[in-house]
């Protein structure tokens, strides 16, 4: 007889051992008078995804439509989340669904940049028939609890009880004695139970009296020791990746068709096939990466370099929303903590950053008074009066404003402010001298201050800097520059590693006895993707771009590109003036010579040929309207 859907639902639920209370807590969402939002939280490997799957079965059985989204596969922007929900639903809006609908977001910590938007805009905008479950590593902050009150259900996932852990191990094929022995050191951690069970099944004759630490990394190592060399090599290679695809595997392990290592990895108990490829469980991936970095740093760097080249190539071949997976792959290669922590948070972040409310004015002014002269306070008041939407605040768990920033697009700044605020002047002057192509966007960070430490490095100030990264991502692929200023070295020291530098030739701006130095981050022609690629390439074995004028060749990403003599001369001339606009007349005069009287389109022809040969880097050779050309860093 054919198995029924009901039987399948029952099986899925039964596969979840020892989480009856948690499942029942989630099921209250489906009651008419139940909570509207639930947050499941627990450490890596605690079984959040399994619980969500079981809850999905329960919800479906009770007639609800279940929409599942994995935070790892979503661009952390409002449009990214909305698009992911629509994709999973197969319809333009949850409102289009008849009956109840449950939105399940797994790995929600990856959307932490959107914390404020999720809480204040997205969830309140959902239709009344929607319920939401978020699974995340950390417990929801106090701002979540105060926003939703009784309508928020928090479901912590602790270790399994000894009896339930024994049941999991018996289901995994271990006998009573083995199960008891394993749980003595695993102590109910679900992923560890699975790993230990696999390790024992693979090597049943190993001595049981070895000293076994309880940490999951050691368990992973125990399991890894039993892998065959090919599978281990594939795992080593892919530990530098956020997700594993055939194309990335092909680049990292060029010696064999990628299908073979893909299949080997897919068979491992801690690897899942997701929407975007294979995902190695974070805990295991981090353990493998740490092991490889320590034992074979050269190979670790070589894998990272190969991944960087492949991801860069894939970035060049995609546009729009389809670009996010590759962009996230690139972010995963960035070592810079400020960037990593924004997108792949490792620590608990206590401060929620969101748009300022009218009642926040006094707290913001108090922060300015603590750290800045009265003239600065007068200017901040003028900004609040003219452009309150530019203010964003970081709140403590109790909701108190502990830091704020003024952040907007430069084009949004009203003329009156531009005339009054001397800190707007350097960026406008720089923009006039170094114009950006039409359509590119400019962010302006007028001020960022934390109550406790001003601009010195601190957790709440770091939350403001991460919010600037959020704004950069939201500004989209046309974002070109971010202007701000530093009153002392403390801010520049924090921002320099992510690409900020002093604005060349810009005079300092004194306000009330404090001197502000204008600084800028130019993301380059490829915007956020180019900027992240540059950050990821630091310390990687990625070939530098070299113009070999003797051989008339450009070495680009490891490939040699043949150039004509004119192309080589034009490129050499522009590289000597990198980042500066070069007049077409100057090129004609200095490359073609004074006496040149040929056709007027010779420069365009040479530039067009160069762009063709630059391939995916063609955007680096920009046309500056009314002037000529400018070469960005290749």
């Amino acid at each position, binding site marked *: 007889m054919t198995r029924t859907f009901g039987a399948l639902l029952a099986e899925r639920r039964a596969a979840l051992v020892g989480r009856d209370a948690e499942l029942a807590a989630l099921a209250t969402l489906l009651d008419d008078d139940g909570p509207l939002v639930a947050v499941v939280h627990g450490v890596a490997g605690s079984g959040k995804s399994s619980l969500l799957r079981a809850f999905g079965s329960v919800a479906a059985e009770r007639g609800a439509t279940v929409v599942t989204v994995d935070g790892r596969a979503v661009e952390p922007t409002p449009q990214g989340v909305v698009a992911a929900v629509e994709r999973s639903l197969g319809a333009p809006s949850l409102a289009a669904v008849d009956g109840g609908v449950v939105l399940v977001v797994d790995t929600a910590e990856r959307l932490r940049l959107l914390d404020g938007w999720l809480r204040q805009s997205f969830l309140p905008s959902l239709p009344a028939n929607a319920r939401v479950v978020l699974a995340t590593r950390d417990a929801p902050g106090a701002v979540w609890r105060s926003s939703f009150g009784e309508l928020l259900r928090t479901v912590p996932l602790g270790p399994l009880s000894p009896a339930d852990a024994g049941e999991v191990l018996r289901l995994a094929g271990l006998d009573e004695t083995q199960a008891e022995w394993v749980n003595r050191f695993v102590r109910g951690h679900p992923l560890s139970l699975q790993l230990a069970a696999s390790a024992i099944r693979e090597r049943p004759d190993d001595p049981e009296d070895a000293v076994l630490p309880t940490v999951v990394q050691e368990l992973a190592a125990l399991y890894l020791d039993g892998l065959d060399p090919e599978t281990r090599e594939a795992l080593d290679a892919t530990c530098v990746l956020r997700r594993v695809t055939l194309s990335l595997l092909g680049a990292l392990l060029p010696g064999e068709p990628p299908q073979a290592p893909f299949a080997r990895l897919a068979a491992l108990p801690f690897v899942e096939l997701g929407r975007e490829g294979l995902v190695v469980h974070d805990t295991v991936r981090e353990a493998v990466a740490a092991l490889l970095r320590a034992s074979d740093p050269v190979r670790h760097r070589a894998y990272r370099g190969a991944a960087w080249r492949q991801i860069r190539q894939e970035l060049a071949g995609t546009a729009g929303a389809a670009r996010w997976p590759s962009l996230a792959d690139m972010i995963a290669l960035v070592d810079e903590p400020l960037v990593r922590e924004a997108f792949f948070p490792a620590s608990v972040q206590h401060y929620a950053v969101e748009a300022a409310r009218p009642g926040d004015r006094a707290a913001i002014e108090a922060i300015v008074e603590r750290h800045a002269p009265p003239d600065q306070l007068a200017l901040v008041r003028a900004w609040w009066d003219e452009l309150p939407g530019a203010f964003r605040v970081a709140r403590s*768990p*109790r909701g108190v404003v502990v830091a704020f920033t003024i952040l907007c697009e430069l084009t949004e700044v009203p003329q009156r402010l531009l005339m009054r605020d001397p800190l707007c002047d350097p960026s406008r002057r720089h923009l006039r001298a170094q114009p950006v192509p039409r359509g590119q966007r400019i962010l302006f960070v007028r001020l960022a201050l934390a109550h406790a430490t001003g601009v010195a490095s601190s957790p709440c100030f770091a939350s403001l800097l991460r919010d600037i990264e959020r704004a950069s991502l939201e500004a989209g692929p046309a974002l070109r520059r971010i202007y701000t200023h530093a009153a002392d070295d403390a801010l520049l020291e924090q921002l320099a590693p992510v690409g900020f530098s002093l604005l060349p030739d810009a005079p300092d701006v004194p306000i009330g006895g404090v001197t502000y130095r204008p600084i800028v981050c130019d993301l380059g022609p490829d915007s956020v993707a180019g900027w992240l690629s540059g950050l990821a390439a630091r310390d990687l074995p990625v070939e530098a771009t070299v113009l070999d004028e003797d051989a008339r060749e450009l070495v680009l990403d490891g490939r040699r590109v043949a150039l004509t003599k004119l192309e080589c001369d034009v490129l050499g001339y522009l590289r000597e003036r990198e980042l500066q606009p070069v007049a077409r007349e100057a090129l004609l005069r200095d490359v073609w010579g004074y006496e040149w009287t040929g056709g007027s389109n010779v420069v365009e022809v040479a530039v067009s040929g160069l762009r063709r040969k630059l391939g995916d880097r063609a955007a680096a050779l920009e046309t500056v309207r009314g002037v000529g050309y400018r070469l960005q860093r290749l």
Partner: protein
Amino acid sequence: MNVYVVPRTRIWLSEEEVAAALDCLPPVNETLREHVRWIRSYVVAEEDGTFSAYCVYEATGPEALRRHADAMMLPTDAIQPVAETIVAAPDPEPVRTA
């Protein structure tokens, strides 16, 4: 510098607030390091679910401790100079090291 005890009753409403304060302490201590040295704190869970703290500092004076408290946004019940320190035994294994 002198040693002070600063009691703070029911200043945190949740463990998360305690954790956030601990997170923020190192940079504040750094900015005031010439005036205040935080020695230790005993955090007490009250029956009503709130948390109190009894903090021990070395400081140049009460004013420096008020600046520290202001930066941390932590109210103080009092700033009491220590007349004499009597150590009968070293502290037991700390729950958390700052």
